[in-house]
Structure formats: C-alpha cells, structure tokens
C-alpha cells in the first residue's frame, strides 16, 4: 500500500474532521433531549452556571476545584484542568460552596433564574493554616469515577526530603502506591510493573522524552515552575493515550497577573530563580524560571588539566505567558529548554537535552462547550563530539515531534460531561548516526531517518446518574502510520537468539511519503464508582492502552543515549489490558483517606534484546530485538492524613511483574527486573510551632530481580562466570530514611526566606547498587562477592527566598 504524502495528509484531515463531527452531532442532540427531559420532570426551567475558579492573589486558574450547589437537590462539579466549570441545574436558590486544597472555602448564596456566569476567586491559606484546616476535597476520591489517579500538591512536594535538597517531582511520585523507584538516586520510575518508557510524561501537553538530568540524579522538572500534577496509573480516561503504564500530566504555573513576585533558592548543587508578574494587570502574565547546577565549578579547582577542562552541568529554563483575550478566549504559550553538558578533558564533549513549546487556546464556544486547542513542538537530542588529532567525528541522534490536539468538554446536562477530541502527531526520529570528516580515520555512518504519524481520536462520557453511582466510559482510536523514504528490512526470518548482523535480509525501498506500515488500535476505557455511604465507595475500571513508540535500553541506569524507535513492519505496537478494583474510605471526618486497589495487567508485544545486541548506530537495530508478553498484578494500600500538625502518608504495594520471551530463559516466565514484591513508603510531616517544619521519609523495598552467576569456568586463564536463569536472583533488600527540617523566618513585608537542611540516607545504609563478582587477588581460585553502594549519608542545605 503506497500513498503519496499529500494524499495521506488529506486522508488524515478528513479522518480528523469526520471524527469530530461524528462525536459532535449526537452529543448536541443528546443535550437537547436531556435538557427538555430534566426541565419537564422538575416543572422548572433548566439553567447553566459556568465560569472559572481562580486564585485571588495571583489570578492562577485552579484545576480540580470543587463546587457544590446546595438547593432542593445537591449538585457537584469540579473544574477542569484549565479552571473552568459548567453545570446545568434547575433554576432556584442555591448555596454555593467552592473549595480547593490549600484555599479557604468560599460560600455564597445565589438565586439563579437564567444562564449565569459565576467565577470565583479563592484566598490561599497560609503555610500553617493549610495543614491545620484542610478542606474536604478528599471527598473527591469518593465521588469521582476515576481510579488509579494520584494528585501531588506542590506544597507537599516541597516538604518531602530528597537527595541533594532539591525538591523533586519524579522522586516524590516514587513514594506513591504502585510507583517504584528506578534505582538509587534515580528519577526514573516504574508504574504497576511497567517499564520506564511506558510512562507518558507531559509538560503542558508536550511529551518529554528524557525526564532526567545527570543520568537520573535530578529530574527535568524544576518544582518552582510546576502548578499541579496528575498521575494516572490505571483506569485512564480516554483523552490520554500512547503509553502502556501511566500518564504523568504536569502543568506549569501561569504567572501571577496581579503582582510581580520572585522566588529562588541557593543549594549545594544547584540554584534556582523564578520571576512572575502581570504583563497587563488581570489579563496577561508571565512566568520565567531557571535552574543551573554548579558541580563543575569544583572541577575547576583541580590542578589536573584533564579534570579542570572537563564539563559537568545542566541547566533548565521554563517559561510561560498567557493572555486573556476576553471572557471566552485565552491563549497560553509555554516552553521548556534544558541541557546537560558533560565533557572529559579535550577528548569528548557530550550534550543532551529536551526542548518543548506549546501554544494553547482555550475557547468557550458556548456556556456548555469548552474547547482547548494545543499546538505542540517537542524535541530531544543528544550529540557527542570527539576531537582528536586524526579523528574528528560526531555521534548524534534526535527525536522531533509536532502535534496538534483538540479537546472539547461538553457539559451536556446535570452530572453529565462529554469529552471528545483528536490528537494528530508527526514524528521524526534520527537514530544514532556518525558523521565524520572526509579525511577522518573513520567513515560516516549515516542511518536513515524514520518518519511516522499517530492520529488518535477519543470520546468519553462522565456520567453521575445518581448520587451513589457514577461512571466514566469512552473509546480511544489510535492510528499509526510509518512513512518512507527509506529502505525497510524484514527480520521475521531470524531465529538465532544471538545478535549478528543479518546477511542480506529481505529489503524494500519506499519513496517519500509512501506508507510502509499501518496499525490501528481500539482502546476501550471504562470506570465505575459505587458510593457505599457518606464515607466509602467501590470502584472498578478496565482500560486498554497501546504504545507506538518504544525506548531501547540494555543498562540499568537510564542513559541519554537510549534510543527511541517507532513501531514498524518488525516492531508491533505494545498493547496492555488492565483491570482494577478499589475500595476507598475516608475516616475521622475526612481527616484521613484510605484506599486499597488491586490490578491485573496483561501486556503484549513487549521488547527485549538478543544476546550481545548492538543498540548503537546500527542499521539493523530492529534485528536485535525479540518480542514477548508480560503480566503484572498487585495490591496497593494507601493511608493519608490530610490535616493536623502531623500529616503525611503510608503506601504499601504487594506486586509481581513477569515477562516471557521465546528466546530468553528457555521460553519460561521470568521476573521483570523491577519486580519488587514489597514496596513501602512512609512520609511524615510535622509542624513544630510557627516556624519549623520537620519531615521524614522511609522507604523499604524487596531487591530487584537480577541475573547473577551460579558457576564459573576459565577460558585462556581468565575466569568467566556462568549465568543460568534470567533475573533468577534478588538484590539485597533496599531501605533508607531521609530527614529534613525547614525553618521559616518570620516574613517581612516584601521578603521572606527559609532554610532547609536535610540528610539523605540518615542511618547510612549501604544499599547495593551493584553486586560484583571478582577473583581474590591473593587466592585467584576464590570468588569474592562485593556489594557496591552508591550513596552513604548525604547532608544538604538550601536557602530559599520569596519576594
């Protein structure tokens, strides 16, 4: 099947519009019918109340704010990700209660006779008040049909002690149930037995391909610039897709549109500065936030020219600006740029980084119909420059993405919201290639670019027919196309479990824009919530997810050179089906929330590697892959205390994650590396008086499943170790306690500051990073086993300020 480029683009757009129309038409009819019905039943007129909820002092929109309309009957609605709500109720008198975590609850009485726009501005609570009087937003978890969803409040994030004293989003979410750390000090994370590349990380809608700095010790997300974060690990609503395990949806701060403010910090490793303020008061604002490490400054102190010429740093920059054109339209521009630089002497220079930009237009088409259009550019690349007398060359790779997303929120009637939209994405991957000078000792090794596109369309309906039952069901359709130009090889005939460049595999050349491969995935999603009483509910969800793009890595640490590949004639899309069931209960007048969730996940077309696979600059990269299946299941317990001087949470996960590949482990099931039977995290925060906050984190986890030798032998005088079962051993158990204390200086009128001191790994536990087998130097026939730990106790101190 070969389609010229123009034709295929046309095909796309028609598909896109057809889907939009298809969803729109019935939706409108349904609304009209429902409206009449409701009005007729009540003998009253139905009116629509809509508007925004914002922060009173900064003008930031507040997502997930809860609105309760108390009248003859009670109605509930939560604001969407952009702070907008719309609800239809019978006309009459209402007492309206607006609440949001960290804000003082607002109550107003209204008589609503016709369609009304009502926007609310909430006063934020002081630091201390916030913990003493938290709102009843925990009701959310009982009311919403969504499950497997965790929200992290930025105020919490900043109190959790972490490595090097840098508040870190990705390390904090690792403390949630079902989320596992990627390793010591790593910002990589694994959700419900999935791999690291099965998490979709979105920053203001843009995909972030490499979420870590300095090989994972820092995440790319500067917590100063983040407004809120949602982590979906199961029961994902249909507007999200593209990865198997989770969606981490991060939204940046918009910027204060009333007053100019700054915020920053000086730490041992990195410093930060954020500025925000109005461009046009109440209408437009900006936010600019930057961060840079300075570990390399210490290198400069070295007398060794190899060391002091070396580079080792990263920086990142977040910016955002918005403009409210009128009451119905606002536009937002946001961007992220980050880069790591690593250089050793004059031997090589290595740089990598992400850049994302998104332009968003929020438009209220109608008081029931909210539209969000986003245009996104996202890019990740790395480059290694090697400079030497007779060899000058560059190793480089990149992945570029342009996508356009259109989302509609249609508030069709009381307790009924329809969401539909489409997501059109063009993607170009330049696999790792080598460019060398003409007279260089090496040849250039060009590798063809790969071009593909993904078109997804979705529709979902959140429906609360009664106060004790709600559901969210939907369907997502993902269409993947791989285009020429390029030569595509077929490796289906390869049988060996050992990697070896295949000799003349069947090849076919495709011209520019010609269709090479086509995949279509239908992803049904449904979640149900049955309220058992005022304090508890039961939820259940099923969802299918597909993944068209895959990251290849055969090391334990996440490296910036780990390649992304698209699905192709050889690589099929990964598919996961997940079933989950949960019980939720609020205790002690909503001061505590508790939940237990069980899940089972079945994964198809998982990827692993042949023995001795060569994943770098390899034309036949796809010949190195083997395909299999996976399954993961577990139970997650969570208990959180939301208010009082003491607060925090405990999460415990009991789980299993396994894989099966015909070519590995004689085709029998083996534990995935990140399979940790027990995984426990506890976070405790204590407000000590007005100025001091103490916090502590404890983590305990079963060791990773690893492959270790079970025997030894000698070849030409060298000892070799004999490996048998894949991941048949366990690393020693992992546990660690981190502590932190923050002293808030009494605030001045224009300036306030605080000191945070912390200690990572407070009792200096030597957690094994690597188990190493070596022959004893004195007794060469004796095998010694060493445990290598990465970090002992690490103190940190940070000075933070605000003005």
């Amino acid at each position, binding site marked *: 099947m070969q389609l010229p480029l123009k034709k295929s683009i046309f095909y796309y757009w028609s598909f896109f519009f057809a889907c939009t129309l298809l969803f729109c038409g019935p939706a409108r009819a349904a609304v009209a019918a429902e409206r009449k019905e409701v009005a007729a039943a009540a003998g009253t007129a139905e009116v629509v109340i809509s508007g925004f909820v914002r922060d009173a002092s900064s003008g930031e929109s507040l997502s997930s704010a809860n609105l309760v309309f108390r009248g003859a009957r009670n109605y509930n609605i939560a604001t969407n990700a952009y702070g907008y709500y719309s609800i239809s109720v019978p006309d009459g008198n209402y007492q309206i209660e607006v609440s949001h975590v960290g804000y003082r609850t607002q109550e107003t009485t209204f008589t609503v006779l016709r369609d009304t726009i009502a926007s609310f501005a909430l006063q934020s609570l002081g630091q201390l008040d916030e913990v003493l009087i938290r709102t009843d937003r925990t009701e959310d978890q009982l009311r919403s049909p969504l499950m497997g969803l965790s929200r992290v409040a930025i105020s919490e994030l900043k109190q959790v002690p972490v490595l090097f004293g840098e508040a870190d989003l990705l390390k904090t979410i690792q403390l949630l149930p079902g989320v596992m750390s990627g390793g010591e000090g790593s910002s990589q994370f694994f959700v419900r037995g999935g791999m690291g590349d099965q998490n979709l990380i979105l920053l203001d809608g843009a995909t972030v391909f490499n979420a870590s700095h300095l090989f994972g010790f820092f995440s790319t997300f500067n917590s100063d610039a983040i407004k809120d974060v949602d982590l979906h690990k199961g029961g994902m609503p249909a507007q999200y897709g593209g990865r198997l395990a989770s969606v981490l949806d991060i939204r940046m701060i918009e910027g204060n549109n009333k007053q100019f403010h700054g915020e920053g910090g000086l730490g041992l490793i990195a410093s930060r500065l954020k500025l925000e303020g109005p461009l046009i008061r109440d209408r437009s604002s900006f936010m600019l936030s930057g961060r840079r490490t300075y570990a390399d400054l210490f290198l400069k102190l070295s007398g060794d020219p190899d060391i002091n010429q070396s580079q080792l740093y990263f920086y990142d920059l977040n910016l955002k600006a918005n403009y409210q054109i009128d009451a119905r339209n606002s536009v937002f521009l946001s961007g992220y740029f980050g880069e790591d630089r690593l250089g050793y002497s004059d031997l090589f220079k290595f740089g990598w980084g992400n850049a994302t930009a998104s332009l968003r237009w929020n438009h209220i088409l109608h008081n029931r119909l909210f539209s969000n259009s986003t245009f996104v550019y996202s890019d990740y690349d790395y480059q290694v420059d090697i400079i030497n007398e007779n060899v000058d060359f560059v190793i480089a790779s990149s992945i570029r993405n342009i996508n356009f997303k259109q989302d509609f929120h249609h508030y069709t009637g009381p307790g009924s919201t329809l969401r539909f939209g489409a997501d059109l994405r063009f993607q170009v991957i330049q696999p790792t290639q080598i460019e060398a000078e003409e007279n260089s000792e090496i*040849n250039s090794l060009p590798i063809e670019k790969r071009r593909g596109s993904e078109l997804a369309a979705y529709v979902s309906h959140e429906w609360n027919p009664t106060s004790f039952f709600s559901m969210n069901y939907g369907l997502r359709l993902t269409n993947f196309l791989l285009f020429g130009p390029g030569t595509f090889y077929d490796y289906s005939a390869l049988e060996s479990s050992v990697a070896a460049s295949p000799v003349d595999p069947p090849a076919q050349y495709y011209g520019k824009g010609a269709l090479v491969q086509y995949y279509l995935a239908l992803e049904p999603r449904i979640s149900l919530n049955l309220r058992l009483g005022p304090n508890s509910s039961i939820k259940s969800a099923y969802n299918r997810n597909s993944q068209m793009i895959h990251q290849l890595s055969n*090391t*334990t640490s996440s490296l910036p050179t780990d390649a992304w590949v698209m699905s192709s004639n050889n690589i099929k899309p990964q598919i996961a089906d997940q079933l989950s069931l949960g019980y939720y209960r609020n205790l002690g007048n909503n001061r505590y929330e508790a939940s237990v969730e069980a899940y089972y996940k079945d994964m198809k077309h998982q990827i692993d590697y042949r023995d001795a696979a060569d994943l770098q600059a390899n034309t036949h990269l796809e010949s190195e892959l083997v395909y299999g299946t996976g399954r993961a299941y577990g139970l997650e317990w969570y208990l959180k205390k939301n208010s009082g001087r003491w607060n925090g949470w405990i999460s415990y996960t009991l789980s299993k994650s396994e894989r099966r590949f015909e070519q590995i482990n004689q085709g029998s099931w083996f534990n995935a590396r990140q399979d940790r039977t027990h995984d426990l995290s506890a976070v405790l925060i204590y407000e000590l008086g007005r100025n001091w906050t103490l916090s502590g984190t404890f983590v305990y986890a079963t060791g990773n499943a690893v492959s270790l030798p*079970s025997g030894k032998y000698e070849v030409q005088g060298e000892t070799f170790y004999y490996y048998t079962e894949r991941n048949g051993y366990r690393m020693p158990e992992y546990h660690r306690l981190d502590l932190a204390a923050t002293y808030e200086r009494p605030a001045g009128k224009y300036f306030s500051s605080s000191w945070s001191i912390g200690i990572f790994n407070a009792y200096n536990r030597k957690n094994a990073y690597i188990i190493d087998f070596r022959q004893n130097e004195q007794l060469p026939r004796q095998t010694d086993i060493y445990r290598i730990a990465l970090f*002992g106790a690490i103190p940190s101190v940070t000075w933070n300020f605000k003005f």
Partner: protein
Amino acid sequence: MVQNMVERMTLLLRGWPLFLVGFLLMGCEDLITLDVQEVSPQFVIVGEINNRESRHEVTIHRTVPLSSSNAMAPVSGATVRVLDGLGRFYEYNEVEPGLYRSRLFRGQTGMEYKLEIAVEGTDFQATSNMPEIVLIDSLGTSSGNFMGEENKFVTLKFYDPPNKSNYYRYTLRVNEGAPRFMSVFDDKYNDGKFVTHELINFDMKLQPNDYVRVQRQHIDQATFLYWRSVSSSNPTASAPANPPSNISNGALGYFSAYSLLEYEMTIPQ
C-alpha cells in the same frame, strides 16, 4: 583508535555512577556472602585452529560452583575431530584430562572447519571460517592520560580491506608472561580506512623497556561477538548473560579458526 574512543566514551557513560562515587567519595564497597543456587554444571568447550601451528587444541571442561576452589572440572573420554571444507578429518587425542590435541595439520585461510565432539552421550558441533590475513603498516606505542593516570598502549596501523567485514582480536605477552586477551575490533566504523588499533587494558600497565609480543588474530564474526561480549560486560548491564557461543547444544565457549600474525617490540621510554 576510533573504536577506543567510542569504547572509552561508552565506558565512561556506563561507569558514570561509579565514577561519581569515586569523585565524591561517598559510596563504598564491601564483601558480602550470597546464597547461590546449585545448578547442574555445563560443558565449556574452547577450540582454536590457526595457520601457524601444526597441532591444535580443544579443551573440554565443566563449570564448577562459585564456591569451588577449582577453576573448572576437566572432561575426559571425549571423541574429538575436525572436518575441513575439503572433507578431510583430523583426529584429536586426549593428552591430559580435558585437553585434546590434534594430529599434525596446518590451518588454511579461507577454509571452513567443523568441530565435532561426542562425550557422555552428547554431541556438540561448531563451524568456523578462517579469514585472510591483513598485514599491518606499522607498530608503535601511544600514551594516554586517562582519569589522571599515564598509560602506554601498543598501537597498530594498517589499511582495512574495503567492502568486507573484518574482525580482529589481539593478545599480548609481556616479558614472556602468559598471553593475555587485550581487545577485539570490527570495521563497522572504519571499513576500508587507514586504521589505528590501540590495545587498551586497564588491568595491565606497560613500563618502558617491557618486551612485548603482540598476536593479531583475524577472526570470524562469531568469535568477534563472543569476545566483544566478554570485553563489554559490565556490572550495570541490565541482564548480564553468557558470551554467545557458536557451539551447538548449549555448550559454553567457542570454536575459532583464525589466521595469525605476531609482532614483538620493546616499549620505548
């Protein structure tokens, strides 16, 4: 040279966290004990044929548990023979437990050899092609300062034959010591170029006036993959595995027919 650069880079990248440990002096290592599974021993077969020597050897052993004070367990009583591309058989005799030596024959470049072993009711087979010799242009030394340590390396320069995959393996004997494996190279990045091979082994420090003998072996792809896997194994690999063997029936080890060049030199000041 280039491959060394790539290797150095990969080394640095992979060893990055460990490098940081060294740099920040925060981590540490200690001796531990670990419960190791009892597994049934596996056959280890190593056979080489070259174009220099007139007798060739095959060793047959079994793996031993990690706790064993033996290096491995010799396997006696095997029937070992090699069949060449012209249908000639070469019988091997056991000269000491686990060591089998051939009758007189010299390997020929361009020839395919097939190893056949029958032992304890199991048959093993492997084939290997002996590649042609690629003469070198010059032999010398280079010095490199890596992680603050001055090291000297033996270097060889030569023209790699174009449009053809070539694989090289080097061993080095210092002052009449035992030959040690240094490195393997392919020509993935420098096919047909004037190539420099720099023999780097951080466990071996060459001193001025050391007398060294370099053995350059022209090996086939399977042997290359075996030794590349050996030299690139590192503790951060997510799934360390046995080097891929070209011998049937799950035996560990390899069978390699290679052509050989040998050079000697004294390390200059």
